[in-house]
């Protein structure tokens, strides 16, 4: 059990800035996910929390106590590594007992803890085996078991599912959440997979280029992304963007890009006025677009015309990739809809489903 507070943390390797001004408050028993593309600094931040790396600037607190000078061994953390990092020369039992032996627990107690944890993860029958005799999924469980058997205050997971196949990954996702509910630890989970982030995190911190762009619940990130990066990173298929010109009168603002016409809501018009400028980037999520007939374009807030580039068939629905004058969009449509590659189609949406971003900086208009 611990609250973790990351304050203005920076990390430099010689000239390379890996992290700059990272701030994050993690609550007790929270499950927080650090998500971002590779090279975004998420693993570095996790290793700083673990104590495997030192900060170049800023501070790290556990329960309001600075831990910058506290050694890994004394931080009361456990970690699951991307490649598991199991001890190859020890049995599963010894792998799990190794940390407990260091704490000089009586061997009866060690035995009880190891067996209880093994039961929980369903690896009791593997206790005598060596890591190389295990499958990927089994190794993953052992790595998990080795971490939770110590009952740590903080539980760190570095892309633990990235080496598993898709089916096993979904299964382990549920397993990890179950384990987290069963133990008292605060969990920090690193992944590059935004679906993992959305499905697992109480809150998510989206990272890019060594900075934390946005921290929020999965719904907050999905509904109100703070900038274009977060908007495009969270959600599958990704949000599409169209660059538009601001036109029309003050009372009826329109965004125009060739054959695309968008009538914004009064609230959005105010935001546009505050931001100024005559260029704007509009983001639309695929599920908010629906195909409309040419005649309907006048009645609806948003009408986007474009040619169909690719149609992806996903069983129940189709992903239609659309090329418009201002950029490309993806639409999710029911399978019954007939869409042919190459034809020009019109999609409609409601103004309230639009995300408006500053054309130059990419930050969301408020």
């Amino acid at each position, binding site marked *: 059990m611990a609250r973790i507070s990351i304050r203005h943390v920076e990390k430099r390797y010689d000239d390379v800035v890996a992290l700059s001004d990272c701030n994050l408050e993690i609550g007790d028993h929270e499950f927080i996910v650090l998500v971002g593309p590779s090279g975004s600094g998420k693993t570095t931040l996790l290793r700083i929390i*673990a104590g*495997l790396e030192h900060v170049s600037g800023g501070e790290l607190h556990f329960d309001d106590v600075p831990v910058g000078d506290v050694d*890994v*061994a*004394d931080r009361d*953390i*456990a*970690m699951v*590594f*991307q*490649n*598991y*990092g*199991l*001890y*190859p*020369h020890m049995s599963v039992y010894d792998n799990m007992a*190794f*940390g407990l032996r*260091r*704490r000089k627990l009586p061997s009866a107690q060690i035995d009880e803890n190891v067996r209880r944890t093994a039961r929980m993860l369903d690896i009791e029958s593997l206790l005598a085996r060596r*890591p*190389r005799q295990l499958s990927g999924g089994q*190794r993953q469980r052992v790595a998990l078991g*080795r971490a939770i058997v*110590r009952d740590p205050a903080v539980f760190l997971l570095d892309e633990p599912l990235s*080496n598993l196949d898709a089916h096993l990954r979904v299964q382990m996702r549920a397993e990890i959440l179950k384990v987290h509910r069963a133990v008292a630890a605060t969990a920090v989970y690193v992944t590059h997979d935004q679906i993992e982030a959305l499905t697992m995190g109480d809150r998510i911190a989206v990272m890019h280029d060594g900075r934390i762009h946005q921290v929020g619940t999965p719904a907050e990130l999905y509904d109100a992304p703070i900038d274009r990066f977060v908007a495009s990173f969270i959600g599958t298929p990704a949000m599409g963007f169209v660059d538009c010109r601001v036109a029309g009168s003050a009372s009826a603002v329109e965004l125009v890009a060739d054959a695309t016409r968008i009538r914004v809501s009064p609230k959005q018009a105010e935001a546009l006025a505050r931001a100024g400028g005559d260029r704007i980037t509009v983001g639309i999520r695929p599920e908010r677009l629906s195909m409309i007939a040419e005649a309907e374009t006048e009645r609806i807030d948003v009408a986007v015309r474009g040619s169909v580039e690719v149609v992806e068939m996903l069983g129940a629905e189709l992903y239609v990739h659309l090329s418009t004058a201002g950029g490309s969009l993806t639409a999710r449509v029911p399978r019954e809809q007939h869409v042919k590659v190459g034809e020009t189609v019109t999609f409609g949406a409601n103004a309230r489903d639009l995300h408006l971003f500053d054309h130059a900086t990419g930050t969301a208009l408020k």
Partner: protein
Amino acid sequence: MYWMVATSLKTELEAANLHPTPWPHVATLANYEGLFGESLPFALFFANTVGTCLATAVVAVVIATPAAYALSRARFRLRGAIAYGVLLFRMLPLVVLLAPLYLLLLDARLLDTRVGLVVGFTTFGLPFAIWMMKSFIDAVPIEVEEAARVDGYPRLQILMKVVAPLILPGLLTTGTFVFMEAWNNLIYPLTFVTTLERQTLPAALVLTFTGQFKTDWGGMMAAATLTTLPLMIAFFTVQRSIVRGLTSGALAGA
């Protein structure tokens, strides 16, 4: 190799024949008996060699392992320079170190002692051992060590409880190479040891069998066979672990 064994089984006359015979016409073990006879303390030479070489292997590995660990894992400014500096020593010819070592051993009153010989052998074997151990340690996945750090273990214990067991084949291989090298070293024992009773086998062979007027070929070959035998046994026993050692990266947990 065959010639050595064949000659060792020949009579003195046949061994010295100007037209060498491909196999002994009259096979005899007389040469071997002579080795263990009253005239030469062959068993003593043998014990001297095994003792000093074994001690050298153990000392070299014990010193090389932590040194290699530091060069492999620690991040400090002069790491590269030190690593290559160590290698540079290796490039010096054996004889270049002879005079300085002689003076050092003289000062330390270790001349003409077996301990002094171990010191001499070790100086030359160590750089090689360090580099070899370093490559074995490099192959151990860093995550395994980090897991041990998270589990609360200090560096020295990680080295002993996690790294050492993983590079055990490497330890054996390195030890064997150092052992073999020391065994074949001729010039150090000839220089540092003056008392015949403390001499090693290769040096003793040279000193005792090559006389001014006559060379006992049969006897010399018998002794050479017995000198080579342990080396071959050592090599073949660790051969499997050498192969395993060189591929020890495959031990990784992933």
